[in-house]
């Protein structure tokens, strides 16, 4: 641990300054060295990827705040997307209602997850792992893995349009980020959330309704995951059950890179955004430099490991300060 601490000590102390400077430095590096990075087309596409990655990171952030992991995040995204897609394509339900229904389903899935954790006392890891299977299996079985690709153009436009050259997706992600920041940093609920994460027993003795907090955190996670799934479906022009199947790694990497501590009690919304930006930049760089798609996984895994090492160093530093 000592070597880890010395190596990452500086980064630990600076918190989000670390990830912000990494983003800035890396962006400049790419702009200068890689052809095709600084083009309008690439930046436009990149910002859309960042938008969705950010919301996925937010979804995991919701439960990281209380020290839990949402392993069923991907399937919750698929649930939202496929529900909305099915409603629009098979039943002709209006776009807005379908989107709301999809988000509601995701929220419900998260609430059920939180409820199970609170009411049964079973290890949260087992519950989210099992629900991963239940939700993904359930949506696959109900829809028979159908591909929804004939959704109304109005829906697909969400993923395509821009406002003053800024993609709508990006604006939505930023708006969600602002709401989350206000919630966690400026409201009583946010304080309850972080208190529950830092020390559940102490939180309960202080009168915080920890059970309600936990259910709400998981419900929020499901809500955001479903939103991310729906936005992705809009961008892709198709809703399918494979949405979210590669979210697990990224959902942890973004918050961790941005300063959120995995044991709960400390979150950074802004950090998560920059973490998502960094992850997307790296993927973009890999694509632009022609690295074979097959090696992407290795890169992302290595990044997550580095992020975690920094996280541990941060934790050790904070503990050392007391």
């Amino acid at each position, binding site marked *: *641990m000592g070597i*880890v601490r010395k190596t990452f000590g500086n980064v630990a102390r600076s918190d989000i300054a670390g990830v912000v400077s990494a983003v800035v430095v890396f962006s400049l590096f790419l702009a200068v060295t890689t052809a095709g990075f600084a083009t309008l087309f690439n930046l436009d596409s990149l910002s859309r990827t960042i938008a969705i990655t950010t919301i996925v990171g937010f979804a995991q952030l919701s439960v990281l705040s209380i020290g839990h*992991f949402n392993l069923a995040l991907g399937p919750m995204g698929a649930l939202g997307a496929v529900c909305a897609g099915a409603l629009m394509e098979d039943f002709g339900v209006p776009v807005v209602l379908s989107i709301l229904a999809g988000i509601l389903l995701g929220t419900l899935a998260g609430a059920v997850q939180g409820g*199970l954790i609170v009411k*049964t*006392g*079973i*290890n949260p*890891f*087992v*519950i989210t*792992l*099992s*629900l*991963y*299977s*239940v*939700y*993904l*299996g*359930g949506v*696959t*079985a109900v829809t*028979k*893995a159908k591909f929804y690709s004939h959704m109304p153009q109005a829906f697909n436009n969400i993923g395509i349009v821009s406002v003053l050259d800024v993609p709508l997706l990006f604006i939505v992600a930023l708006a969600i980020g602002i709401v989350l920041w206000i919630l966690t940093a400026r409201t009583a609920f946010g304080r309850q959330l972080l208190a529950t994460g830092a020390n559940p027993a102490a939180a309960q003795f202080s009168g915080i309704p920890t059970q309600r907090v936990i259910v709400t955190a998981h419900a929020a996670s499901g809500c955001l995951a479903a939103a991310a799934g729906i936005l992705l479906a809009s961008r892709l022009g198709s809703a399918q059950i494979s949405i979210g199947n590669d979210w*697990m*790694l990224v959902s*942890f990497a973004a918050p*961790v890179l941005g300063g959120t501590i*995995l*044991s709960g009690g400390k979150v950074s919304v802004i950090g998560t955004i920059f973490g998502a930006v960094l992850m997307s930049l790296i993927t973009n760089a890999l694509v632009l430099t022609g690295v*074979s798609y*097959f*090696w*992407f*996984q*290795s*890169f*992302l*895994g*290595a990044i*997550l*490991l580095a992020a*975690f*090492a920094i996280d*541990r160093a941060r934790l*050790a530093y904070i503990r050392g300060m007391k």
Partner: protein
Amino acid sequence: MMDSTAERGAPKRSFASASNLESILQSSSGGVLLAVAILGIILGLTTKDFFSAVNFVVLARSFSVMAVVGLAQMIIIGTGGMNLSVGAIGGLAGVATGGVMDALGYSPALAIPAGLCVGALCGLVNGWLITRLGVSGVTSFLVTLASGSVFTGINLGITRANPFYNLPADFRLIGSLKIAGIPLLLFLMLGLALALALMFRYLGLGRQLLALGGNITAAELSGVPINRVVITSHVLCGVLAAFAAILLTSRLGSAQPDVGKDWLLPSFAAPIIGGTSLAGGKVSVAGAVLGAILLAVISNGLVFLSIDVYWNQFIQGIIILAAVGLDRVRTISAERLERRQA
């Protein structure tokens, strides 16, 4: 019987009960055995061909592989951690074995040890990283989440998602050979299970593994070399994952890069259903094997009952929840009983 626990205060169900039958039924393995028996009987009565010799062979080959996967995860759960990269290790080891035979032209006698070494190496990486970053459940979660991605990446990078098809006949024989109508895979799995059970019961390493899972601080204070035990457990887990992949590859007849892709849930489900506690410190080898059998019977049964195979994943999730829920109920009522008696 085949349950091992390092907790001195644990309910001595197996030893203190009046009859052996009673103790078997009371243990978690007994519950699973009962479930398997009941399910098997129902399926045998309601469908044609479930009890046929052909189906038995299919079932046996299927659960033998998954039982090894479950045992691999069980080792890590016993130490209080988790390994999300078992599937990735399996995939990489499988293609490594296949590649040594197909691309490099060596015999299985070289390829199989090579595959096992790949598994051991992956486990070594996991164990080393975990000890470096501070042994804990959270650490093992994140390290193996990341390393799983790295291993899969290496797998895909080497194979470009193309399987190795030209495997020697004597390698493929392992997966297809039958002795007195019973697949060789089953014997291999049972042999491994027996070895593991003996290790946990009689070998110092086994007790150290469980001590680590039971209470890491107490273990450390008792002189258990934490880092060495963590690394050893992950190396063992990696070797077992590789072994499972080699068995599966032999059965499939080709080395597929996506081996292990869907191992994550079953690797936890089998041991947990079988009574291994996720908190660590208690494992059940027989339970893990029976858990794998239960899951295989369910999958198999769905096919016979003409239920959409898509429901398989859903049902597996429900089963784990039910199994853990039942275990929780049992634990709570046992605690209540103890409190009343005190």
